[in-house]
């Protein structure tokens, strides 16, 4: 990944973004399981990023860590560009 498609700003270099966390790919689970017992999926990673060097939007990024391909970037929480 060297670029992410910010829904507000368009394609931007990765250095403008800050990684926040990965999310569990499976459903549900207790808080403990969601926080500590995540299993990394080699093909699918759900992540939260913030465009701190730009519009400060929070983004939900779906990525394939094996290939580096970005599968989807959407705004977190129903904001509309």
């Amino acid at each position, binding site marked *: 990944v060297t670029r992410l498609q910010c829904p507000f700003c368009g394609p931007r270099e990765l250095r403008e973004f800050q990684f*926040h966390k990965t999310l569990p790919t499976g459903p549900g689970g207790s*808080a*403990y399981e969601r*926080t500590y017992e995540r299993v990394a999926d080699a093909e699918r990673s759900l992540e939260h990023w913030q465009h*701190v060097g730009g519009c400060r939007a929070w983004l939900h990024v779906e990525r394939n860590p094996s290939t580096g391909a970005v599968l989807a970037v959407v705004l977190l929480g129903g904001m509309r560009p």
Partner: protein
Amino acid sequence: VKPPPPRQGCRLDAQPLQFSFDGRSYPGLAGDTAASALLANGVRLMGRSVKYRRRRGLLAAGPEEPNALFTVGARPDAIPNVSAPLLQLRDGLEFRSQNRWPTLGFDLASALQAGGGLFGAGFYYKTFIWPSWRWYETPIRHLAGLGEAPGRCDLPPPVLEHCSCDVVVAGAGAAGLAAALAAARAGAKVILCEREPACGGELEYEAALVGGVPARAWVRAALAELAALGARVLTHTTLVAESSGELLAHGEPGGLAGMNTLHYIRPRAFVIAMGAIECPIAFRDNDRPGVMLLNAAERYLARYGARCGQELVLFANNDRAYPAAQRLLAGGMRVRAIVDTRAADAAGAPAAALRDELRRAGVECLAAHAVLAAEGSTAVRGARVAPLADPAAARQIACDTILVSGGWAPALHAGLREGGSAEFQAGLGAFIASAQPAGRASAGAANGHLELAQVLRDGHEAGVRAARAAGAPGTPGAAPDGRGDGEPRLAPFARSPAPERWEKHQFIDLQNDVTVADLRTALAEGFLDIEHLKRYTTLGVGTEQGRTGGLLGAAILAELRSEALPGIGLSRTRPPYHPLTMRSIAGFRAGAAVKVARRTPLHEWHEAHGGVLDPMDLWLRPRYYRANGASASTAAVVEARQVRAHGGIADGSTLGKLEVAGPDAAAFLDYLYLNRASTIKPGRARYMVNLREDGCVLDDGLVLRLGAERFIATVSSSHGPHMLAHFEHYRATEFAGRRLTVTDVTEAWVAIVVAGPQSRAALERVLGAAWRDTLGTLGHMGFADGDCHGAGLRLLRASFSGELAFELHCRPASAVQLWQELCDAGLAPYGLDAVDILRVEKGYLVSSEINGETTPFDLGLDALAHAGNPCLGRELLDRPAFHEPQRPRLVGLRAADGRAAFLGGAQLTVPGELRRPCGYVTSSVYSPTLGEWLGLALVARSIDLEARLVARDPLRGGDVAVRVVPPVHFDPDGTRMKAQPASQGSATT
């Protein structure tokens, strides 16, 4: 200085210049490189090897040069490890050789080694272990390493350029030009990078025909056509790295070392046409000055008119030696012999015809022979030559230069990134890149083609494919036809026969002094894989990255393991593919651009009044004021005493302030904080604590309720940006769609802390009659808004010192005046160190205690945790691990004798178990109020109050006996902080 012999080369013009090498002045010509000018001046010795300090001369004519690395410029701004063939001369340039002391001609370390033989692989690991490596480290480090790091960096910041295009072609030789032409004709936007100052590669000087015209004319025409088609040609620019489709090209315009331009290029397609590097052959003492690659000798002659020597012996495993010998003869050198490792009938017809011609010209042409050794102790004096069938029948051929051609290694590095792999090509005896990701391809010699017509065709086809991948619709035209030296018909030959005792003189990697003996040692010790071998022997590390020695090492490893070369493979090279200065890598990310300094509106006042400003996170904050003492420790004690006795003011503007507003603001803060914000009354503030998802304490601060739907949350100074992102994250996730806003108002408000018993009286004088009633009635944690000097002012009564204290939140424009009036009213400023003393006396928390590992229970915030607010992190607070007896608890510490000093960071143990800590000191200060050292500590819950512990600090203070006390050392009931004015007496809560 003698005038140089007249020279003619395609790069030179007649403009003379002077340069200095190792303090001696030499003449050169404009267009020379350091390597060509030294060679033309007859200088052979250009460096010492890194480990054995052996004398070394030029081996190559490009960035692969392993020996001639120079330090350019004068200390302390010198740039080390500049490859001599890349260093463009300019008048007055100064550079020096490396790895020698005291001089290049006499090196003490090599003299010391002369008796002991050569240190092989693993020598250090095995030898310097008794009594300890530390005994040897300093002298060895003095000798080790490549070049010398500069004392400072005074290089100009690199110019950065981000660009995108359809096709990038790296390398403007025959293949690169053909590729760029094809792509540009098809309509693609092309960028062509060439590391040399001129384009053409070997076509620049080769007597070849392309498209029926002389090669140089074709190159000129091709460049003109590229320019007409809008292609961009970057000379002096090398492709240094590639990452996920972004290429990094490094340019030194004008060839000036250190004057850098970095191009970040995003192409749709990428053609690697960076050529192939000739391989050496290992024979005894093949590292002597005077042993050079054949192609390098030709380049020096043709480009710079510099002769590599006078009496030459050529040693090759391919046909190229014969046309090369003819050109070297024409250049005025004498070719004594051509030693061909192949049988007489292996040469192709043109080469065989040339061979007969050369024989008639007096060149001895030997087939199925090898050079066993280079003769001569400081430089080549002869070649020891023998038939391969009978190495014992060796004889010497006098010469001053041995030119070697052992095959070619295609430039692989860029082709092995991200999905590329190496594939063996039997005809070439070398590896090429394969399995490239879409849009990337190698072409020409980099793709294993060595005959000009094939190179041009391969380049053209790569350009066609690249243009198609980039979506260019046009027609690329036909591939140019070329006629140059024929197929080399090489027969792999890696090293000459040698008795095993010679193997430590058969060099493979000259830059790292790796010999055949080292490979044998590594194999004997189990380092079988090429990557393990690389780590153990250092084969292919350094600036050279295995460009000359990598393939040779793999071939010899295959021989020693009795295996086939394809199964051995090459070790992976790492970027940058070409050395560049750290300054270039840093780019604009240097100095203030990396770490901005944030200043409060009172910054100039602090500076003008003796404030000593220290960075804390990004903020510059006054640590103490010089008027109170010469050092932080003495001044802070004076300042803290003043606050308790009388009063003082401090700059608290750095405190982060986030304004949260909207109908859902209260619910939002309830979610983010352990205790509730929704129950705060307007006009009141509350001490609040945030948790992380995992239940650990993230931050603490006051939350002020301005109105029903409006709050200001204060966060730690160093946490401001992080807490803003934290708030924004939960606004975008858990509170998505809810009605609230989060605004960072940190810089909209200056905070002046006014603390001490006299604070109220001083404020009455400064703020005037309008504020008198408010000051009298405002209770602890209450605040009021109003005006002062015509600007908004918020008066908050809160304390981080344990004294009666207020915070004035005012606008930046009125801050200095207000601050100065408070000073005039008799309140002296105090710095951060005094703040620290005051808060430790009161057991208040900072990041030493809220360190990311502590829970609310650890920090004595149980009451907040038990309030039961279902907030972020709440669920995980109940896990058993947070309630085990080993969990820490915040306590106070004092020295057992009431006098001794102990410092933050000291480990705490029970007296009987000095080797097992039960906690550590988080903060410690000398308290002027209590007259002794006080500390805060996190110790296991199983340790009781009044327990005797040992604070162990072996590196600073030794052991100090301490006792555990409650964390609030001073005024535990808070009577000072909650004091009401004498006139009023009634408490306002």
